[in-house]
């Protein structure tokens, strides 16, 4: 897992309302953080394929952002767009809860 910013772009969709901009705050490579990144990637590929962008922020490298972005819990996932702003804390182990948390219907197969 890299701490670098990961971008998965779907340029055509970026401006539309349906495009998801996600930020995942982690602290180093703890088991919880590694699991969260894995779970998030899997979730997005399943439910948001082609219309999401994940930015991973390692607070150990950017400690200032903990205050600027009001982060306490690790990992924390923040959805900036589409609105409303949503925060999910935890290793995102339950895809079902993610769907509920993001107010999404399961993607059609």
């Amino acid at each position: 897992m890299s701490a670098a910013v990961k971008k998965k772009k779907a340029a055509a969709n970026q401006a539309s309302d349906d495009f998801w901009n996600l930020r995942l705050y982690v602290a180093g490579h703890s088991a919880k953080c590694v699991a969260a990144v894995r779970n998030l990637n899997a979730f997005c590929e399943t439910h948001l394929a082609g219309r999401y962008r994940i930015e991973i922020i390692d607070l150990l490298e950017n400690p200032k952002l903990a205050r600027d972005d009001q982060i306490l819990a690790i990992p924390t996932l923040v959805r900036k767009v589409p609105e409303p702003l949503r925060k999910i804390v935890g290793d995102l182990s339950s895809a079902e809860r993610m769907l509920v948390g993001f107010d999404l219907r399961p993607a059609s197969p």
Partner: protein
Amino acid sequence: MAKPNGKGSTARLTKAPTGIQGLDEITVGGLPKGRPTLVCGAAGCGKTLLAMEFLVRGALEQGEPGVFMAFEETAEELTANVRSLGFDLDKLVAQKKLLLDHVVLDSAQIDENGEFDLSGLFIRLGYAIDTIGAKRVVLDTIEALFGGFSNQAILRAELRRLFRWLKDKGVTAIITAERGDGTLTRQGLEEYVSDCVLLLDHRVIDQVSTRRLRIVKYRGSAHGTNEYPFLIDEDGFSVLPITSTALNHVTSDERLSTGVPHLDAMLGGKGVYRGSSILVSGTAGTGKSSLAAHFARASCARGERCLYFAFEESESQIVRNMSSVGIDLRPWIKKGLLRFVPGRPTSTGMEMHLALMHRAVRHFQPRLVIVDPISNLAAAGALRDATAMLTRMIDFLKTEQITAVLTSLTGGGEAKEETDVGISSLVDTWFMVRNSERGVERTRWLYVLKSRGMAHSNQIREFLLTSRGIELRDVPPQPGSISGRGGARTGARN
């Protein structure tokens, strides 16, 4: 009675002075340095102020920068709230002596999904500490986290980790917490922070509010065990240590004039002892305040400051009344030697009152204190409280070698040789002033009921309030009187 729990342990605990008046005395030097202290109490009892003052004084007086992590108030609110106490947080922040971080908790926005920890909080706090090189940290009120997250097991484990982490960081920390029902804190934080626990309390008894502080626990240190009244006013937080120094104050052989030559003459020609307490009691309109004003003038004329607690009349009223008997107090007020502290004791609690007086004395550093009258204090609280309070006040003044003149209004038509508040045994010199009607004239009389450690007159003198001040006149001995001048040496000097 405040008594230390014992001598400090062999490995002396280092302490971080709070700089808060009185608190360092009862904690024998401050809070445990490099360790967390828990400050608990109900809402509105002053936890945040105490914590903030700890940081501000630490930054200003100890050169220790501090981080204030606020879970409830924003930086702007905090800054505005303490501005009235004379703390300029903006300036301290600009000078990098203080860092304010407002933690926003909005549980409605947060969904929990799986395992998490509070590393973000640790990183955030660690970064804040490192940014300004903080030596002090306040977490106010960290229990708010329990409202922000639902997984209590994780929170508890993380708080335990946090307090250990703070210790490892070596910062002196204050963690505030709300008082719980039957427990010190709502979330049982006292389990985690066990080095030092302070409890603040704000009680209202008989419509009079009193704030109190108690050290519940202070591991490895001697500390006061009482409940101490404390004040929050324009100078910040101050705790009143009721260290009843009782009888170990030094006594002085120096004599001071009462300001009335005839009265000095009645006291062996030399007046009262410095640092002694003098009671002037009598019925209404007998000239007690006038006598007190003589003391004040004499003190100022010696170049010694005098603090006058006026509980019955305003400053201007007293000044006017005194000028009518030839005592002009205005020049002394102008010179800053005489200061009046007005106030109605009934408007605040006893403890509060004592604390206010204590503070006024500390500030002004007078050599003479006048309380006119003390009988109004009895009206403020229960009799027992009033006596206890005066005892402490007198003890305090004696310790500081400040002479005290107390006036007392005795009730009823007949002057009794006992005062309302029963402090007669505490005073060293006691003047009685009484009225009597003779024909169409009302006459005032004065006598020395007692004066410890000196020869004094046993005679009753006529007491005249003239336009040149008080004059005492010999009364022709009544038939059968055996008293003469001079008199017995009574009482024991301690």
